[in-house]
Each structure stands twice: as C-alpha cells, then as structure tokens.
C-alpha cells in the first residue's frame, strides 16, 4: 500500500517507463498470445510434414495459400474492426456482391479492369453503409451487419438468380493461379504480403491504428485523448468493405465463376481466424502477426487433415475445439497467474 502513495510523487512518476515494471521485451514477445499461435503453427507444419503423406510439397503450399487468401485478406481489416470492439458480419456477402457485379459487368461487355474498379467502389459503398449506420445512427454493429449480411447477399442472388457467369479473360484467371517459379507460392501472395505490411504499419505504428486499440479499450478515454471515435470506426468499416470486394474479385477469378452464393458463411471463418490469432472479441487487444498466423494455422490444419483423409465433419469439430481452447486459454492462464503472484513489497507498481 505504501508504494501506491509514493507512486503519486511527481519525481517517481516521471522516471517510470514500461520497462521499469514490465517484463523485458524478449519475454513479452515470447510469452505473448501471438507467439503461442506462431509456435502452434510451426509445430503443426513440422508434424504434418513428417506424418502426413504429400503434405511437405510445393503443391500443398500453393493450394493452401490459394485457399487461405480470401480469409487472409478480409482478416486484415476485420482485425481493425474487432479491435475497436465492433464486428462486421457482412464481409462474405460483400464478397459475393462484388463477385456478381464483376460477372454482370464483364458479361455486359465492360472491360474487366474497369469492372474491378467498380467492384471496389461497391465494396467501399457497402462498408460506408455499415459505417454510417454504426457511427452516425449509432446502432450496434452486430445488428447492423446481420442486416447488411442479408441485404448484400439478397442483392447478389437477386442480380444473378441461380445462374453463374463464367467467361472471364484467361489472362486474369491464369495470373491468379500462377506461381512464383517452382516455389509453389502463388503470385497473388505478393499483393497479400503488401497488404499485410500496410495494415500492420497502420495498426501498430500510426496514431490512427493506436487510436483504434485505445478505442477498443475504452471509448471515452480514447475520445478524451483526442481520438475521433466515429471517424476511426467509419474508416475501419470502409476498409473492410473495400478489401472484401477485393477478395470477391480474387474469388471470381480463381474459380472462374461469378455466383450469388459465392463464399456463403466465409465471415465465420474470418472471425474465427482473427480470434484464434489473439484478437479480443471485446476489443482493445490484438496484433496482426497473430492474426496472419491464426489464418495460416487453420489453413494448414485443414489441409493436413484433408490429406490425412479425415472427414469434413471431424475437421470442423477439430477447428471448433481449437477455437474454443484458444479463447479459453488466456483466461485460464490469467487465473493461474492470479493464484501464483502476490504483491511483493519494494517492487514498483504499474502507473494506474
């Protein structure tokens, strides 16, 4: 109790930095949630390469990355949204809408490059609608995006019905499937990696990104600290819309088919991967490298289990259990920590 009082002295408070009371940085990295996910990913890759036939091949890597790309893309802006304490369930519907619009426009003779730009604009609009309803009207994002999930999907299916549009330029379809040399890494990963770097920089090294985290921890504190709460949230939703539309373009070209029901249910895979990557569903906590590892962990697990002839139901069960364990484990760790640690005299407490 004495130390709390001394903590109020200005001289003491001045000297204090994170390193004075926290663990050294290597230790914070090593024992973080993100490192745990990365470690799990490494373990799964090593075990699968050793045990599962055909897993350790460039072909596996290529298919795995091609399959994971839409989830990986949408997970980036979704991380921003969830870190602010909001959620966006309409991403898969935006993807489907973008796919259908690309198909309809291409069929109508619009050059595909121009059609892609329109798709991105539609994604921007979709995100803006979500952002407007959440920030300006002040509705809860869960309710808003359940609504737009149905709305965007409804428009997509309404535009095309049960038909599919399949004639896309061979150049673009080949480009999406092409690999870098003999590595098995798809060319499209270049775009993905660029986006990962951009989002990581934005989230972790810009005032806007740190504002999103602050906003997730406490809306009022963030607002009083100068974060424009509504603008920050609005931008996060718009980014999600645009990237979902981008994923829609990728999806259409990869499968060569624009359908109203493309990627139905993908929003749950995205959110699952984001949570597995250590982002708190309550906001305020998470890092992008954890999310990337989370997406890859689910992708690697599913790919390895498929190659090991595990049935799709069992794969779903394993993925579900993994997710629950990952959400529970930090709570469990915090609980055991609470049992172990007692306040020790003489050690400085963190500033409150």
């Amino acid at each position, binding site marked *: 109790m004495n130390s709390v009082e001394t903590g109020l002295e200005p001289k003491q408070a001045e000297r204090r930095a994170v*390193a*004075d009371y926290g663990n*050294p*940085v*290597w230790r914070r*990295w090593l024992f973080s949630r993100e490192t745990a996910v*990365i470690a799990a*990913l*490494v373990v799964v*890759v090593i075990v699968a*390469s050793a045990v599962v*036939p*055909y*897993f*350790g*091949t*460039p*072909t*596996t*890597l290529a*298919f795995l990355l091609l*399959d994971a790309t839409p989830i990986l893309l949408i997970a980036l802006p979704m991380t921003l949204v969830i870190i602010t304490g909001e959620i966006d369930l309409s991403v898969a519907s935006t993807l489907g809408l973008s796919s259908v619009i690309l198909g309809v426009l291409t069929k109508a003779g619009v050059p595909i490059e121009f059609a892609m730009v329109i798709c991105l604009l539609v994604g921007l609009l979709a995100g803006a609608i979500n952002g407007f309803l959440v920030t300006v009207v002040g509705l809860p994002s869960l309710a808003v995006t359940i609504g737009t999930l149905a709305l965007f999907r409804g428009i997509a299916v309404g535009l095309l019905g049960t038909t*599919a549009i*399949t004639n896309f330029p061979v150049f673009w*379809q080949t480009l999406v*499937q092409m690999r870098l040399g003999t*590595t*098995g*890494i798809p060319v499209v990963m270049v775009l993905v990696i660029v986006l990962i770097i951009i989002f990581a920089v934005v989230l972790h090294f810009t005032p806007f990104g740190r504002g999103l985290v602050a906003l997730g921890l406490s809306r009022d504190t963030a607002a009083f600290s100068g974060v424009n709460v509504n603008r920050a949230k609005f931008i996060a939703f718009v980014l999600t819309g645009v990237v979902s539309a981008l994923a829609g373009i990728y*999806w259409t070209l990869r*499968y*060569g*088919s624009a*359908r109203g*029901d*493309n*990627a*139905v*249910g993908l929003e749950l895979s995205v959110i699952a991967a984001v949570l597995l990557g250590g982002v708190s569903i309550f906001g305020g906590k998470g890092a992008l*490298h954890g999310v990337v590892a989370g997406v890859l962990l689910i992708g690697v697990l*599913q*790919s390895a289990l*498929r*190659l090991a*002839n595990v*049935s*799709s*139901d069992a794969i*779903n069960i394993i993925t579900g259990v993994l997710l629950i364990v990952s959400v529970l484990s930090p709570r469990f760790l915090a609980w055991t920590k609470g049992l172990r640690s007692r306040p020790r005299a003489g050690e400085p407490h963190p500033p409150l």
Partner: protein
Amino acid sequence: MLLHSSTRRKGVTRALSIGVGVVAIALLATACSSGGSPGTSSSGDKNYKITFLPKNLGNAYFDTSDKGGAAAIKSFGGTYSEVGPATATADAQVSYINTLTQQGVGAIVLSANDPTALGSSLTQAKSAGVKIVTFDSDTDPKYRDVFVNQATAEGIAKVEVDSITKLIGDTGEIAILSAAANATNQNAWIDLMKKDLAANHPNVKLDAVVYGNDDDQTSFDKTAALLQTYPNLKGIVSPTTVGVAAAARYLSTSAFKGKVQLTGLGTPNQMRSYVKDGTVTGFALWNPEDLGYLAAFTAKALVDGTITGKTGDTFTAGKLGKFTVGDKATVLLGDPFVFNKDNIDKFNF
C-alpha cells in the same frame, strides 16, 4: 534485472528481440516454401483407388449412390473411399479435388456443385493422370472424361406418360402439377409428354398444367384447386419431387384418395407413407444405387483404358451389363426406375 541496468541497453534489447522475431518468421516462411519433394502418384499397372466426391456429405441421396459405388469397387478389387465437404459449395470441392490429385488416386467420381468453378482443379487432376467421372450433376464436358447420366428427358417423359395412362385405363382427363413456369427441365419433359399423349393416347385429355413453384404449400393449394376446377379429373402427374409429395399429402386426406391417380418424380422417403396407404401406386426416379455402381465401373473402364470417352466405346458394368459411350462422352444409366409398394422399403433416400 541485469537487462534493466541502462536505458541504452534496453533499446538494444528491444531491437534485438524484434530482429530475432523477424528472422524467425522469415526462416519459417522459407522452410515452408522449400521443404519436401513433389508427390509421386502410386505406381503399379492399374490404379483402382477410386474416390467418390459427392456434392456434400450427410446427404441421403449420395449415401445411397456411394453405397452402390462401394459395392462395385469391392467387386473388382479396388479401393473405395468417399470424401466431401459438409456443405454443398464449389470452392470446398476444389480443395478436395486438389487433395485427391496430390494423393494420386486413380479416379474421382464427382457430382459437381458448379459446372465451371471446378474447371482448373479438374484440369490439373487430369493432367496428373487422374480419371474424372461425373455423375448426377455434370461439369462442362471439357473438364471431365465421362458423364454418367441418370436419365434422359425422353426417358422421364415416357415413364410418366406410361404410368399415368396405365393407372387411368388409357382414357379420361389428367392434369400436370409442375415446378416453376420457367423451370427448364420440367418444361422440356412436359413438351415431350404432350407429344407422346397426342400421338399415342387419343382418349386421354390434358386439362391443365399448373405450377406449384416447387413450394410445398403452393403445390398443395394448386392440387386442391385442380380437383375443384376439373371434377372429372382422373389423374395428376407431377414431375417434381416437391409437387408430387404435396399432391399426395392432399389426396391422402381428401375424398379423392384412391379415385384420382397420382404419379410423378419422387423420392422414396418422401413418398413412402403415401405408397403404403394406397394414395400412390407408383412413382418414378432413377435408382441412385445403380447410378453409383455404374459410375464406379465407368471409372474402372477409364483406368483400364477400355474406354477413353470416345463415342461408341463399350464396357461392361458388372451386374448392370454392357454400356456404350454416347454423344458428348455420356453414359446413360437407362430408363427411370419405378418405385412401388414391393420395392420401396429397399431404399432410404
């Protein structure tokens, strides 16, 4: 505590640990990309590893067809397996086709969720030497070797007309309860049925074609309306599984039960109780078990090289006998199968 001695040291430590993290991730990435050797397909003369890939698992129709496939593959000493997504989507099937290609199976027997979305993965499978047989639902012909067709429009129209005319004694008024007014399949069948009726059954009069939109309640109401509008109606044909079940439900609880005959395309599980209580004497569909059986033997014939998909190729499919590859590399199962009181309990789909 040692590391806390000076601020400069702290900065170095921080930079170091971030650096280590980055290097570790880079190493991981390169380890992923360079590891392993390309998969080789299993050697041997005939690769009878045949995998069924239905639209989705847990679907009674495909459970039945794949059971037929399993029996066929067992009979010629091959290895049967079944994989598939939990929900019927094309992208999930793509992952499975890619996986099977890597595993080097001999043939994939597939019911496609999309005619083109599977294209590039099927092309890769074919170039790796995997034979592709589609059944139930085809892909674009260029992506597969052979399609096993369950029934032709002519076959379906003929079995419907033959059944209903036989039931009403080849004389009297009938009506058709269809799906949607623009349903391609149903309209093709109805046209053929009209031609057949006009040419071969002069005493049978088709009063009306009504549309239940493949909706249970609408089909039920349309049946009621038909019976009110045409009091002399002797028979109803419903070439859609939803329609025939709804019409049977109406008839079974009405005064018309047993007086107005009903037939159509239906599934045994939907129609079982109406066949047993006498509302419906018989209805048609193909036999999915035979379809799976034939598809498995088609895969074997492709692996053997007996057929290549060329028109006129012939092969023998166990108990089902001899088949010829037709136009567009299609093998036809045969005439639709008629389900009745005697055989319905053998089917569960």
